[in-house]
């Protein structure tokens, strides 16, 4: 993938992450490559421009850089918001390979701060059997988990054809179509086959 395609892919990743109810697989190759590019360019830009031409080019480089930096932070921040919202749930997952090492680190710290705070402020004042933050069988689930039946807007990138739905008429997805649809109906087409994108 060329650099320009990477930037386009990052734009799509930002839109996807913002619209998706669950935390998607961390785009590790894409993000690491672009962070590397941004860092090396920032270093190069530190040299003071002398001539007006250099100043002009410098300004263009800076604006381009700022846009990519905004996309990167927007991507990472959207994920952090979801990690915080679903912290109690994510911690209990067997497999957290969808997070980056830094995100796992953040999650661990966030979880311990949050649970400590809960203990100090009210959990210790409750009867013994109500103190646990883990939901046990037969009890109401207390953690917030991603709602996979949340509705999303999708754009079809590649012809899909018929998609079966449980209780109503099947739908046909053709390239270029835009639908408003429950996320779980088309989830594999977004995360695995990449024939559909979230908009």
């Amino acid at each position, binding site marked *: 993938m060329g*650099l320009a395609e990477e930037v386009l892919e990052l734009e799509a990743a930002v*839109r996807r992450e913002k*619209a998706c109810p669950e935390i998607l697989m961390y785009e590790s190759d894409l993000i690491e490559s672009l962070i590397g590019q941004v860092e090396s360019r920032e270093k190069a830009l530190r040299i003071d421009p002398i001539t007006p031409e250099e100043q002009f080019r410098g300004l263009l*480089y800076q604006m381009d850089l700022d846009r990519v930096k905004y996309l990167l932070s927007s991507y990472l921040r959207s994920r952090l918001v*979801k990690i915080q919202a679903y912290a109690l749930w994510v911690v209990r997952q067997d497999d957290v390979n969808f997070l980056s090492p830094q995100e796992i680190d953040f999650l661990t710290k966030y979880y311990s701060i949050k649970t400590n705070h809960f203990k100090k402020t009210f959990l210790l004042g409750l009867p013994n059997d109500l103190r646990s933050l883990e939901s046990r069988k037969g009890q109401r689930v207390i953690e917030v988990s991603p709602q996979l039946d949340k*509705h999303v807007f999708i754009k079809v990138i590649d012809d899909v054809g018929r998609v079966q739905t449980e209780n109503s008429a099947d739908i046909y997805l053709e390239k270029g179509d835009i639908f408003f*649809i429950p996320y779980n109906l088309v989830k594999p087409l977004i995360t695995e086959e990449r024939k559909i994108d979230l908009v």
Partner: protein
Amino acid sequence: MEIELSMAETEFFAESQLITIVPNFREDQIILLCGQFGPFRPSIPLDVPLWLAIFLKKQHKCQIVPPSWMDLEVLSNKVEVERKTEGFAEIDFHYLETSSMLLTHAQEDIKHKSVIGRLIQDLYDLRTAKIRDIIKELKPENSKLKLTNIAAIELQTLRRLLVCTFDTISQINRKEEQVEDEKNNENAAPQ
């Protein structure tokens, strides 16, 4: 904290689309993260991202060539087609953001700019009326909507309303199921 896409971000994405400019300066090729552009030679048209075009315009370094759909004739046809078709007529996904940015920053490059502005407004009004019809027809049991050719901004205006409404409906459904389950469990339990 809100992570939902904002109108400003929609405009940001519109700004990375390419547009043709005619530069009036000389400059070598410039290698940006989002692509390689140039070399810039006076009077030789080339494609650059919209954000770059508007920056150059503000510095009086280029003339912007409006996209083909912003042509007077094309646009009046579009309005007619929009009036006749039932769904949304095909149009640039970022037509509102692009035209509004160009009408603000590159007025002198757009022929018949006031007519163009009015036609865009007509188009938007027609399409918004269709959106209102969609909302009127919404039914809780039909949770799938085909919105092909809807534009970015129009989608934004629908996003919050639709997502909130349908999510609340499924939340209520879930609660009902939960209450049912609990009732069943209680009945099943020995007295």
